[in-house]
């Protein structure tokens, strides 16, 4: 599968550093949690969660050289994409689904929320960020008919604290959890889900090169995030020693996650 190069037909600013890009193409076979490799010829190619199928939509925070180059593009300019890649969320089962998103991780969950709401299923989205300006998709999720709970670390919106604090009430009702966000958050959600015995599926991020299972760059204790993931169950992740602890750079060298919430060995 070679990349398809198509024009950008819409750009929606979501927060001060995040934009949604609508492409002149569709990806009807995609399921929530799957990703595409987005290519700017001459720049780079990076993986992004699919936000909507038709038209193909992705949401990107400007955090590095590629995403900044993407943010500099205008409507009508062209980007390439290939996909969908990876295994997405399993949305089956009865009862309320709790979606837990940190930062731009909420974008990947939006696709799952819209599919669930199409089937009139109960959805609560707990979203968190450092401050109010880090949040995104709140209005759109409310418009779908999802219940939205918010936490910010500085207390500028919702409860002051972490997204897991915002999720407390919904955790009592939830029959399953879907989560996407920084790895420290995912590790906390994994522990919470295992302790409360709620089935959970978490979308994991790793540095990717090929995107289709042959280069090995995205290894997570021998699982390939691009093929076996990016969505894993909490149970699977609890068996992978690198989850929450180790990621790899472009050389393939392993590094420990730094900072609060990193799993200790």
């Amino acid at each position: 599968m070679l990349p398809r190069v198509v024009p950008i037909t819409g750009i929606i600013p979501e927060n001060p550093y995040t934009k949604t890009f609508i492409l002149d193409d569709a990806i009807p076979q995609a399921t929530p949690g799957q990703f595409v490799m987005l290519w700017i010829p001459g720049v780079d190619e990076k993986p992004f969660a699919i936000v909507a199928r038709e038209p193909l939509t992705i949401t990107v925070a400007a955090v590095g050289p590629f995403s900044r180059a993407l943010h500099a593009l205008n409507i009508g300019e062209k980007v390439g994409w290939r996909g969908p890649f990876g295994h997405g969320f399993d949305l089956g089962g009865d009862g309320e689904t709790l979606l837990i998103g940190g930062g731009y991780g909420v974008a990947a969950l939006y696709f799952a929320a819209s599919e669930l709401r199409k089937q009139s299923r109960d959805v609560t989205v707990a979203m968190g960020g450092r401050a109010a300006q880090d949040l995104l998709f709140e209005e759109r999720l409310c418009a779908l008919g999802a219940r939205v709970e918010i936490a910010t670390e500085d207390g500028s919106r919702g409860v002051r604290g972490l997204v897991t604090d915002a999720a407390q009430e919904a955790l009592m009702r939830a029959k399953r959890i879907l989560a996407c966000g920084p790895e420290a958050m995912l590790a906390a959600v994994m522990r919470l889900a295992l302790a409360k015995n709620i089935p959970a599926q978490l979308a994991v991020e790793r540095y990717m090169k090929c995107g289709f299972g042959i280069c090995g760059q995205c290894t997570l204790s021998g699982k390939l995030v691009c093929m076996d993931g990016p969505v894993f169950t909490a149970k699977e992740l609890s068996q992978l020693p690198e989850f929450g602890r180790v990621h790899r750079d472009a050389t393939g060298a392993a590094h420990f996650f730094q900072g609060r919430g990193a799993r200790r060995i």
Partner: protein
Amino acid sequence: MSEPDLSVTICGVRLRNPTVLASGILGLSEDLLIRVGEAGAGAVTSKSCGLKPRAGYPNPVVADWGAGLINAVGLSNPGVDATMEEVRTAKRVLKPKGVAVIASIFAESVWDFGVVAQKISPAEPDLIEVNISCPNVEHEFGQFFCATPYVAAQVTRRVKQSTDIPIIVKLSPNEANIAEIARAVVDAGADAVSAINTLGPGMVIDIESRAPIISNRIGGISGAAIHPIAVRCVNDIARAVPVPIVGIGGNAAARDAIEMIIAGAHAVGIGSAIYSRGLAVFAETTRGIEAYMRQHNFARLDDFRNSVMETAPTAGSRIVIPQPTEP
């Protein structure tokens, strides 16, 4: 008839079956090498490591162009010191399972090939594969190390002087006479050769943006498209040198592997096919070779290795060169 014996011994190292994970595919961590070994490979090869860490080229580094893959990863690797730990762990776990571990090395100079070989040796890989044939770094390293028999032999000698572990020298299909290079490296001490590295380099262009798909502009071609070339190269080498050959290039099924063995290969490398067939390709290939051996009453791989039927061109196609006549 007794069970066919699919094992093969290369330079004193026994593989339980002839399938080998080719270098550059998945071999980035010990966990992945172990996973491939457990999936059925007879040997696994770590991704080529050099003296210092290299990030490689920006994406895209690999693309599926329809009849195969094109890649220019740019020899990304965390450096020999990190790879040493990877190889050591993989060896410790895989040895009891009967899976051999091959460490692939590259360097930017003849001298450094020796340094890298020396540094990787304490990890005790069963074999060291010397990658003198990556087609994607020519603009960085100058001419390929396998471009001339003289330089290929120099690298081989340097590595042999630097380690006691048997070495496999990996050759390129991109030189006019692969048999001549094989002869040169074997004369210089290579214990085995593997062939082929990727073909090309090739180029794939996106017709909308007119940009090359691969960030490096050009990349090595692999997959089904290059298998017939790999078979020819293996057979050329088998006719030229007496050492074991690891036949690599487009092997995706038992038939491809059997062809390689008939052409003269002792073992068969599998790489790009993991993309289309998954890790099951190792066990499927082994089962298929076994079925073929039963069908043909072969007890060992040796019974049909290097057994290409000698054929002569038919009279009609033979070019008749007029003999000079006596004046």
